[in-house]
């Protein structure tokens, strides 16, 4: 068989790839609660949860996420994150959570520190949609919680 035009794969790919450590988190306000969707590389997530919890089931996952992704309302009261489900999409795992937040996201304090115990070049991107606006926050190792405007 001809070299399967796998050649094309290199063309589409060649000078692009570098090892990057990142997660992406979307927050959307839905009436009195917030929906949170985290996208993380499955390899990294699995490693992080296993190191933190010594197991990788859903309970371990949610404990890990609660320990590393923290959300507090505008008055500073911590908000409990509840796991809705997980889905694997290719080599990415999507983790969906929900949190009660009657006061909405404006003024809420958040910190996204997933995988930072593993990688000192971790950058977590967080995007929040609320009240007709969109805002982005970036978290790197050592960052404290920040308020959404």
């Amino acid at each position, binding site marked *: *068989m*001809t*070299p*399967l*035009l*796998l*050649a*094309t*794969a*290199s*063309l*589409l*790919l*060649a*000078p*692009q*790839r*570098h*090892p*990057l*450590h*990142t997660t*992406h988190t*979307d927050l959307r306000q839905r009436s009195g609660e917030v929906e949170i969707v985290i996208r993380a*590389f*499955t*390899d990294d997530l699995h490693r992080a949860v296993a190191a933190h919890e010594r197991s990788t089931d859903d309970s371990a996952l949610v404990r890990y996420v609660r320990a590393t992704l923290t959300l507090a309302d505008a008055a500073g009261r911590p908000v409990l994150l509840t796991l809705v489900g997980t889905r694997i*999409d*290719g*080599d*990415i795992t999507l983790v969906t959570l929900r949190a009660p937040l009657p006061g909405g996201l404006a003024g809420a304090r958040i910190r996204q520190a997933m995988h930072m115990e593993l*990688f*000192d*070049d*971790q*950058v977590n*991107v967080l*995007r929040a949609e609320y009240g007709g606006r*969109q805002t*982005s*926050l*970036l978290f*790197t*190792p050592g960052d404290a919680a920040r308020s959404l405007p």
Partner: protein
Amino acid sequence: MRISLLFLITLASGTAGCQRNVEPPPQHTADSHRIRDLDISFYEARVARDPYGARDRATLGALYLQRARSSGSEGDIFRAEALARTSLHTRHKRNGSAISVLISSLMAQHRFVEAHTLAGELAALDSTDLGARAMLGEVALELGRYDEAAHVFSNVALSRTSPAIAPRYARWLELTGRSGEARLMLESLRDTLASGFRVPPEQLAWLELRIGEMAAKNGRPGLARKSYSRGLALLPDDPQLLAASARLSATAGAWRPAVALAERSLAERFDPMTLALLADGYAVLGDTAQAAQYAHAMEVAVSRLPSGFHRGWALFLLDHGRRVNDMLARATADYATRTDVYGADLLGWALHRAGRDRAAAPYAISALAQHTRDGLLYYHAGMIALALGDTTLAGARLREALDINPRFDPFAADTARAALAGLPGAPR
């Protein structure tokens, strides 16, 4: 048996879409990703069942590489490399597919020297396989071995319009100062593929991206915008097309749309270059807190690069006076194996930013040796000449940069104009 290259492209992409239109509905992207993932599951199961399946391993490796392009996953690239190596261990002869996967995965990790050795072996396996030769030429270009690349590409010239060769041939033309010819070649390929059967939208969108990039680099923003728009009609959330559109808006000074597009790109895929663009964008828009946040995140993201060194990231850090000595060391190490024009340009610029202009000058000359039509190369050479007090050479280089593209960079083009205005004899 020689199989139609077009068919092979489709096969390699693992899609079963049957859209003929240039602008298929976005659903096809989701479909092709879903089908690709089904293909991956299918081949993973086959590989698990058959410890000796060399071809299945090569195919699965190719699918992982394809997925890596959209997700940016390094894990998929490493998996592809491992599968290709296992495949070759199982069957070394008549296993060009596995060698191709291995070469591609090595290139993705910037292990160009290893890739070059293998590409030579692959081309030697079958002297009639022009795609393999073009792949060798592609790796030679990355290493700055232009004589070898010229030899390889002149040998495949008669087949240069075939889908396996045209993108690589066009890259050679582009790097050697014939970007107009390169763009026309890719446009022709795009038109051929667009009327083909079962051509995945990713292939067409990638061609639109390349055509747009060439047009943008050569001062044709309208044409670039059109190409990017066509690409985005195929893949509305493609992060590379969104980022390219953002850069185009930025060079036109339209920073609000640039930031919006870059944010959309970042939502799809994390790329430090997008962080860099956002840092600049927020700074121009006066949001210094956001600008600092993005610049810092970019610096953190690229602080460890065990298997790669991205020149664009290095240029951003150098231009912002961040980690200059570190970037100089990395550029020097990079140039030890990759003596291509962009490697020379980066090393020259790093030396300039470190205040070592006399050492930078030879690299600026090397960067222009292939007559590559890229305004940034001429700008860097001009600023180095200016720092050395050679105002005649500086004037010539800076004018050339602006002739190639009056908006070759959102900031450097204005700096070039200001520098030209300050030269002796400049109109007041």
